[in-house]
């Protein structure tokens, strides 16, 4: 998302999960399945609206996420609102962890398959089309993969802060990377360090994990910026 100049899309997209979470709480099914379904549906809607209207993904997501946030806050039962917005690591059980691991493997494998096509599309859509890439299909797959990634993080840091995990570790990696492989590896490492240190601090300080994950990540981001400035 950072390379596509769609950092805010990654952030805002996470908010569209809120009505799905609300339905889960209201009708007693796993709220994260509801959030997942809303993310997927929204990704397809954003893609289709983008094709029909020629509006940028950023504009469409900008409109969609405010509506979703408003509807979600209105219908979600108040006791669960905080959990949905900020996540709760203590509610994550073994099954959630296994599901998250499986989804991660699927997302990484799919990304690997279409990796070259995504990169080419980012460099130039014309170049990609002239090399036989179906750009519309790649854009859809890409949005679905972002939805998957966002969905994994919702349980831990909530819909408000999960966008951070999509954007900030990648932004930190970009400032000190000269190749895609370095960028990919550093993004993953920074994301993992932010999450682990945030969760550890949370149990040590007895504070919510979500904000601490964000603060750990911001520290890495600041260090990366300083490192990139000293490199120049």
């Amino acid at each position, binding site marked *: 998302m950072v390379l596509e100049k769609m950092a805010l899309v990654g952030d805002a997209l996470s908010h569209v999960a809120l009505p799905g979470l609300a339905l889960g709480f209201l009708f007693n099914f796993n709220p994260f399945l509801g959030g997942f379904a809303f993310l997927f549906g929204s990704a397809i809607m954003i893609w289709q609206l983008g094709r029909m209207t020629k509006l940028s993904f950023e504009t469409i997501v900008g409109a969609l996420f405010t509506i979703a946030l408003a509807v979600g806050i209105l219908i979600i039962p108040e006791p669960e609102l905080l959990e949905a917005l900020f996540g709760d690591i203590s509610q994550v059980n073994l099954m959630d962890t296994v599901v998250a691991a499986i989804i991660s493997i699927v997302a990484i494998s799919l990304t690997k398959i279409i990796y070259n096509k995504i*990169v080419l599309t980012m460099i130039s859509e014309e170049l990609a089309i002239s090399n036989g890439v179906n750009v519309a299909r790649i854009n859809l797959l890409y949005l679905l993969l972002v939805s998957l990634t966002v969905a994994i993080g919702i349980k831990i840091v909530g819909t408000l802060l999960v966008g951070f995990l999509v954007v900030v570790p990648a932004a930190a990696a970009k400032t000190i990377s*000269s*190749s895609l492989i370095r960028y990919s590896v550093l993004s993953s490492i920074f994301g993992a360090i932010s999450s682990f240190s945030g969760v550890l601090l949370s149990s040590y300080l007895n504070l919510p994990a979500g904000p601490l994950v964000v603060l750990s990540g911001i520290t890495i981001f600041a260090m990366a910026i300083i490192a990139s400035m000293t490199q120049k």
Partner: protein
Amino acid sequence: MENPNDNILNVSGLSVKIQNQIILDNINFKLKRGTTLAIVGPNGAGKSVLFRTLLNLIPYTGKIEWGDRVRIGYVPQILSVKDIPISVKEFLSIKKASNIDEALNSVGLNKDILNKSLDALSGGQLRRVLIAWAIIDKPNVLLFDEPTTGVDLDSEEAIYEVLKRFTKENEVTLLLISHGIHIIRDYSDYMLALNKCVTFFGESKEIMNPSLQKIIYGETHTCLETRP
């Protein structure tokens, strides 16, 4: 007698409308294998649109007939490489070709550049890498939209020399868009002047004729009567 197999491209009655505006109107021309065609004309004449149409990137009416076994290498004018941390090696590896060293050698670059980030390259180096990208899977047609954008004059000549040598050695047909009059004269065989319609089609040396320059780049122009 003309052998139709000599032609690698045959365009007839080609017209393009974008949002109800005529961008290209009844374009007709043929191109022989192994020749270089410069597409010239003022800004907004439809040069880049013609390229995109030839690549089937935008809808059109009329006919575009490429010769048998055509493999096209294309480099657009604008690329977003400045925003992506991608090394030269990673960029050239996208095409999964095994002859990266050979392609670099053809454009006068050595292997030291492979680990550099694309956004750390000079304008001339970047354009050479893009040429390497275009030729790496051995195309027999190359389409270059202003191949020396953002390049200083010395590097410009060097890049055209590279293109000329490569196209002659490999019998590649080259279509290029350029604004440089000397470049058109020295590095292309024929030129197609556009201003939505065809205003001139002929040998490139004619570009030095001042009255023709007025027709090609002037505000008033006359469409050439071209036939398929």
